[in-house]
């Protein structure tokens, strides 16, 4: 009838054995790797000592897996059971809990950021930031006084060298971004270019989210204005897509629309089957660009 209850409490493990009084509190070998956790030896012994007729309830899926690896069956306790059971346990306020949770947070964050999608997103955001900073510096340089004062000239020389280095840094970063984009989003990169592809991913958040996106939404990703039926934006980061600059401004909206339609196909291939459709889509894109250049409206 009465079930044993096993709950996690940060670095601790709580076991309530229906045959014994109160809780047994063990230190649960904190495995802040963010991955699977194993029960401490003491807990395994307590569970092994339970008669087979006693069911084991646990608080989380993680604990259920850990208990079942010891050979006992376990089921998830319902919310009210857990809440009521925990009402009777004093929560220790030593520094162990904080150290444990901080270590766990660092580990989980690191694991999550190692994902190739996340690496590409990080590079895309960084490249965008560097590009903007570089543009700002170059703009400022155009306005900077070209006086013949010696100290100004010396400063100007140092600043120019800095900009050249910064420019080189941007080039290296772009090359890295291109490599990552070709790996993560091979098809989309072929259709819109690596820069736009990476930025689209950064805005969507993940490949899965990008693959679920409709063409109209993808077309406007990254646009600042609010969509509206009469005068909404025509493109967001697709503005930076390959071959956009070749077209006159009046045809760019049309190109963005067609490109978005091709880009969602590529994004879906990248997010699901990983099949190679990029070359064909790229051919269709180029045909469309030529048509738009000739002034065809279809």
């Amino acid at each position, binding site marked *: 009838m009465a079930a044993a209850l096993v709950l996690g409490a940060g670095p601790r493990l709580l076991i309530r054995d229906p045959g014994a009084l109160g809780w047994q509190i063990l230190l649960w070998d904190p495995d802040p790797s963010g991955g699977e956790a194993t029960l401490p030896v003491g807990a395994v012994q307590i569970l092994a000592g339970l008669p087979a007729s006693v069911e084991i309830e646990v*608080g*989380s899926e993680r604990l259920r897996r850990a208990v079942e690896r010891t050979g006992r069956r376990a089921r998830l306790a319902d919310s009210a059971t857990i*809440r009521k059971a*925990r009402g009777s346990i004093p929560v220790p306020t030593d520094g162990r809990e904080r150290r444990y*949770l*901080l270590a*766990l*947070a*660092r580990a989980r964050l690191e694991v999550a950021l190692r994902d190739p999608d996340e690496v590409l997103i990080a590079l895309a955001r960084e490249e965008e930031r560097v590009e903007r900073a570089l543009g700002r510096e170059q703009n400022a340089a155009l306005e900077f006084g070209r006086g013949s004062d010696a100290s100004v000239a010396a400063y100007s020389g140092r600043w120019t060298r800095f900009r050249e280095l910064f420019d080189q840094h941007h080039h290296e970063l772009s090359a890295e971004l291109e490599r990552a984009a070709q790996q993560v989003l091979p098809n989309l990169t072929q259709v819109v270019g690596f820069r736009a592809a990476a930025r689209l991913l950064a805005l969507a958040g993940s490949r899965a989210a990008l693959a679920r996106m409709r063409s109209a939404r993808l077309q406007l990703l990254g646009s600042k204005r609010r969509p509206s039926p009469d005068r909404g934006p025509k493109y967001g980061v697709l503005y930076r897509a390959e071959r956009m600059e070749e077209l006159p401004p009046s045809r760019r909206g049309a190109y963005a629309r067609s490109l978005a339609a091709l880009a969602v196909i590529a994004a879906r291939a990248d997010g699901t089957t990983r099949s190679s459709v990029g070359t064909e889509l790229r051919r269709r894109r180029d045909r469309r660009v030529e048509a738009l250049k000739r002034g065809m409206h279809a």
Partner: protein
Amino acid sequence: MPRPSLFRPTDRHPSLWVRPEERYPTFWVETLGSLPPTHGERWSAARGRTVRHFDPYRSKLAAALARGWEGELPASGERWLYLGAASGTTASFVADLVGSAGRVYAVEKSLRPFGRLLSVAERWPNLLPILADARRPRDYVDFVPNVAGIYVDISQPDQVEIFRENAALFLEERGRGLIALKASSIERGIPPAEHARRAVDALATEYRGVGPIPLSPFHRAHYFLDLRLGPPSSGGPKSVRRPTRGPGSRGSRPQ
């Protein structure tokens, strides 16, 4: 001669201070953390204590204070679960309010804000960051004990449902819920105030509540709900049953 301090203590919370200024008073919270500021807020000294500016434009909890919300703030020594901590702006203030004997378990799902939250948590002794999805409370039930209150600031359409699930698992008897509701993440095309009323109605059977308190002009189309677990005193949450406009208002006009 030193100028007399303009900071005044409040009777609401020992850590909350106000400073009268030209247009309206500003709120300040005595801090447990250390510099640098979490989001560029001003730090100052109030009668020997270090306080931080609690800006209603940055924090919905501060906006509720500025809009005249009179409910209880998270009290000293309490444990709170904070859903949607983002970079830890408001979460750090809640941590300051619960003091060194309290704890704030801050749940955030998004990686980049979480990185900032983590660096804030490293400087706050009682702010504990958890990388998890508030929609799946079983993922962090191993790390979060029962709490005196849950603060919810996740701009999600099913925000109320998420709060309810977390409350079922974590909220103590007579526990509190503070919810910052973003109407525009629920559904467009319905007046924001209507969303707030629906949210209160959805929770009215289990919770006594104050609100919805509109947070404009600090946060557009946001509402603040102050709930306490327990049967409604009489006729449900206070301001819900009361018509928001007088008789003859738009809602009651015959069509």
